[in-house]
């Protein structure tokens, strides 16, 4: 029931008239722009003979788009926009009351909606790692691969998911002291 029409890429009028001018002698054109351009500059200007090809854009494959999207997801989920607007430091610091030395503080304490840059990036990386783990599991269950590759994919997938989940739980427990109590 569905009809799919592939539309031709849309050229701009200048190159259209160039291409049309090339075979002007061979066919009659009903393009009004072509006739106007044939008259005004090109009756006394001679266009050079070039071997130009119209740039043809083909749509990228689904998996290319998916990897770009994964990158954008990583940036959004690590709080990139928060970093750009609020401009927190890369890592916090606190002074040890006893010795006076300055110790770094990785996780911004006190509120849920606040972060330092590095903690955001590391958490975002963990989320993407978990996602990739599930993708690897699905690739491992694909029938058309050699068995050792399937085994290594499944081991990598399972370990990615486990590491990502354990680390994220650890991070959130450090960040919110009363978590799950």
């Amino acid at each position, binding site marked *: *029931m*569905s*009809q*799919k*029409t592939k*539309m031709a890429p*849309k*050229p701009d*009028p200048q190159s259209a008239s160039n291409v049309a001018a090339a075979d002007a002698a061979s066919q009659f054109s*009903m*393009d*009004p*722009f072509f006739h106007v351009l044939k008259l005004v500059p090109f009756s006394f200007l001679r266009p050079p003979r070039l071997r130009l090809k119209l740039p043809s854009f083909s*749509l990228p494959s689904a*998996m290319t*788009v*998916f990897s770009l999207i*994964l990158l*954008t*997801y990583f940036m*959004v*989920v*690590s*709080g*990139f*926009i*928060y970093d*750009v*607007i*609020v401009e927190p430091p890369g890592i916090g610091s606190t002074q040890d009351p006893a010795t006076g030395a300055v110790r770094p503080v990785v996780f911004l304490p006190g509120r*849920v*909606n*606040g*972060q330092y840059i590095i903690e*955001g990036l590391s*958490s*975002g990386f963990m*989320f*993407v790692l*978990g*996602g*990739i*783990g*599930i*993708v690897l*599991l*699905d690739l491992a*269950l694909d029938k058309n691969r050699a*068995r050792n590759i399937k085994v290594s994919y499944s081991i990598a997938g*399972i370990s990615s*998911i486990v590491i*990502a989940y354990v680390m*994220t739980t650890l*991070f*959130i427990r450090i*960040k*919110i002291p*009363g*978590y*799950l109590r």
Partner: protein
Amino acid sequence: MAAVATMPVSDLLKSFKLKTKQQELLIRVSILCLVYILAFITRLFSVLRYESMIHEFDPYFNYRTTLYLTQNGFYDFWNWFDYESWYPLGRIVGGTLYPGLMITAALIYRILHFLRFAVHIREVCVLTAPFFASNTTLVAYFFGKEIWDTGAGLVAAILISVCPGYISRSVAGSYDNEGVAIFALLFTFYLFVKAVNTGSLAWSLASAFGYFYMVSAWGGYVFIINLIPLYVLVLLITGRYSMRLYVAYNCMYVLGMLLAMQIRFVGFQHVQSGEHMAAMGVFFLMQVFYFLDWVKHMLSDTKLFQAFLRITVTCAVAVGTIALGLGMLSGYISPWTGRFYSLLDPTYAKDHIPIIASVSEHQPTAWSSFMFDFHILLFLFPAGLYFCFKRLSDATIFIVMYGLTSMYFAGVMVRLILVATPAVCLISSIAVSATVKNLTVLLRSKNKGVQTGSTKGSSSSKASSKALLDQSQPFQKNGAIALLFGAFYLLSKYATHCTWVTSEAYSSPSIVLAARGAHGNRVIFDDYREAYFWLRQNTPPDAKVMSWWDYGYQITAMGNRTVIVDNNTWNNTHIATVGRAMSSYEDEAIEIMRSLDVNYVLVVFGGVTGYSSDDINKFLWMVRIGGGVFPVIKEPDYLVNGEYRVDKGAAPKMLNCLMYKLCYYRFGEMLTEYGKPPGYDRARGVEIGNKDIKLEHLEEAFTTSNWIVRIYKVKPPNNRW
């Protein structure tokens, strides 16, 4: 009777045995019933802990308007001019609100009364949001079924029933537009995707009406009217133009636009506002596509058609650009408003519009907010995207676009995590369903392998591969079982997390504060309601109350008195006037207050209890907003070396402004904490600078039991000789 008794038990049981299809239907229906009930009861924490009351600030206005609607009927509500808020300007309520929520609650109220259940309208308002959350789970099931299959639909319903991102704005008592709007949003999207998949006019009509309900419910309908044209554009670019898409989009756009103009608040924005122009542009683009398709069908000469294509496309693009340019230059098409423009350019609000930047829900999102609201869905979301990209269809392209755009906006503003939640739940459900399906196929594959091995002939390669397969089969089967247990463990952790978050973080009514006492017992502060009822019972009925805009709705709803500014924040100059009054010295402030006919001033002070969302902490926003309109108020006057202080080292203007005086009047003699000097502010953690405060034009009228709300009366001017 005798015949039944003589039938043996096994025959009786056999007559009840269901076929597989019926068993599956029974399982599905029972899961959906349980999920429906679960979505409702998980939102009832605050009703069980405190009482059935309306939470926060905005819901009080919605409650007051619903009360008016049930008491006075629809036409009085639609034409209501409210003189009790924004004194002396008043507010045209009928033309400045989204009526969907109020009408829905009033309809439920009327149905219940028709069935002779005499409930109070407040109970209906409190429980509207959980009821619609349960309905959203059903819509999520059907949507999941449309995109992927029934398994994904069931998982989507389960995930969305407890997801904290949705619970945060739809808990019982949170009587706000979003409670109904998320249901309307998902419903409209489901109907539109169904219309695109089937190409039926009936489904397109239904999606237009769903869009109308969404427009009547929430200002976030702008998301729908921009996402759907973007989706249509992506389908056109990827070469998926079809008659189904044409029918669905045209019907939905035209009818939806006409219906949306029935809401007075929206008015003619669909043809006049820049935010709605994308939909119109795509509408005309669809007509061009259809026209070209028709011409191609009529012409048999391809070269002629190519030339015709070039001319038409050039002309169409030129005409469209000229029309858009003319519209914008002449001012007929208004540019993007600040609220929505700040979503595209997040730095805009910080520099230009302090009111938008001051709301805490409008801050950008940090990773921990995502984790708090989504938990393991953050892992499942990219995996679900992968599965969608593996099996691209019209429906999966839609859910991918919805997920990506809503996640970007959720990253810009914390409040919009709510809009992203249905998309994240749906895409995650695809990941869960596909993975579990893979694993269970693995679990079942052993039997099939043995059968085919035995029925086919035994060539040597097949035998050897079958032997290898036999060796790994038990290992694979055990591995699949272990992975299924792992998935079950993760999902149960998700459920635990969601319930904990709902109980601890999202069930607080905000109007009643709770804290842990010294011995771990729970202490309740009900100061807000104490103050509002004092206002209601001890002030003249035409008294006017000046406070910061946060409390306006609550004062009008519970205190039943006229306010100067409230949460609608539609008039920035009026709010700036109040901000200027609060930040000036008492002599200047009394002039402003007399010009506004103010009788009482209400401030919120957290120094005794340690409550940190009080007016002293919000004071700098009052200065910024007031200074934005009246340059006489300068923010550096109130700061010392860029630092905001209230102790001895504070700026002199800060120590003598009206807000400081009203908050700390008589506080200098108060002992708040053991071992600290009198006048120790527990919220700021310092001893205040100016303890000896004298008020000349105001007198203290009421202070609540924990000093949280303080009300002052404006003294009439002295008699003249």
